[in-house]
């Protein structure tokens, strides 16, 4: 919040300056996102152990996910409440998806079609 201070306001708006700083942050994040996507695209073709690639993919996309919500979606600069609200949904969803996936097994008969 811009508090009314006793000191005279500087002639330029600090708020604008902040936003200007963000430009560079956003640019770096965007570059990182592209880089990670490129890495993801490459490693699936590399002859490495499947589990390692799988974990790498999971971690990399998690990093992308968090980068977007943290910087692009402003959570870094916003009230913690926004993060909490979103995390409630994200956690319940993640838990549900995981539990569901564990409860299904490969069908021994194969598909009917």
């Amino acid at each position, binding site marked *: 919040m811009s508090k*009314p201070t006793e000191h005279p306001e500087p002639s330029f708006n600090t708020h604008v300056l902040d936003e200007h700083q963000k430009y560079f942050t956003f640019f770096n994040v965007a570059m990182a996102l592209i880089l990670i996507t490129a890495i993801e*695209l490459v490693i699936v073709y590399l002859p490495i152990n499947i589990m390692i690639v799988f974990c790498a993919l999971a971690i990399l*996309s998690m990093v992308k996910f968090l980068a977007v919500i943290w*910087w*692009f979606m*402003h959570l870094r600069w916003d009230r913690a409440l926004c993060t909490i609200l979103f995390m409630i*949904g*994200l956690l319940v969803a993640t838990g549900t998806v995981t539990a569901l996936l564990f409860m299904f097994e490969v069908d021994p008969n194969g598909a009917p079609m």
Partner: protein
Amino acid sequence: MSDLAAHADPLEELKQTNTGVENKKMAMWAFLASDCMFFGTLISTHLIYRKIYPTVVDPTQIFSIELTGFSSFILLMSSFLMALTVSSAHKGNLTSMRTFLLGTILFGGVFLGGQVYEFSHFVHEKGLTLSSSVFGSTFYTLTGTHGIHVALGVFWLAMWFFATLPKKFSQFTREERLPAQLITFWVALPVVMVLVYFIHHHSTAYLLIAAGWLVLFPVLMLVTTPLRGRYSHVNALDVETAGLYWHFVDIVWIIIFTAVYLVEYL
């Protein structure tokens, strides 16, 4: 109202809630939490059937990872542009905001185009339809729902773009860089389409799209007249809210890209 308060940023006034988060923004975050469950359900439906029938289809025979990789790149970039849009909106810099907003919309449109191409390719060349197999059902429902989200986002952002335009056409030239922005936006798509036509695929569909857009855009400018001139600095919050939605659609795609496409190549 004292003088101090009168000069305060109207956006700050909206923050005067118990939590310091504006109502619209809070509702949007709650909606996104809820949307996590939407996509969670769709993604689990898809993955469950992949788990049950691991060998029934070989998605790598169907997917084109180059196209999807490109789409992902496009959507990530649109997210970047969206972040810049919101930033300029808060700065009150209308000119750069329009540029970035148009960029976001354009990239969103390209993503959608890619998806339409992908779907029609799968249907016509690979024989994968909604009803051809469980894989088709889950795949199309999941990616289609995501596509609808993108389309709604494009629509929503476009509404705000039109709202930033001056009320009268005669005022357009007085706005910094506006005519250039509009013209670029108008011809960019047809140029790309014509290029695609010559380089990639001699299909008249591309030419039709190019021609269609050339006609459609002026029509859009006309029918959105009631929207024009409605944007003011307070609406930076609305743009930010729309932006949150847009980024969310992007992160959902990050998950889909990995969980639905990439892992199939392992």
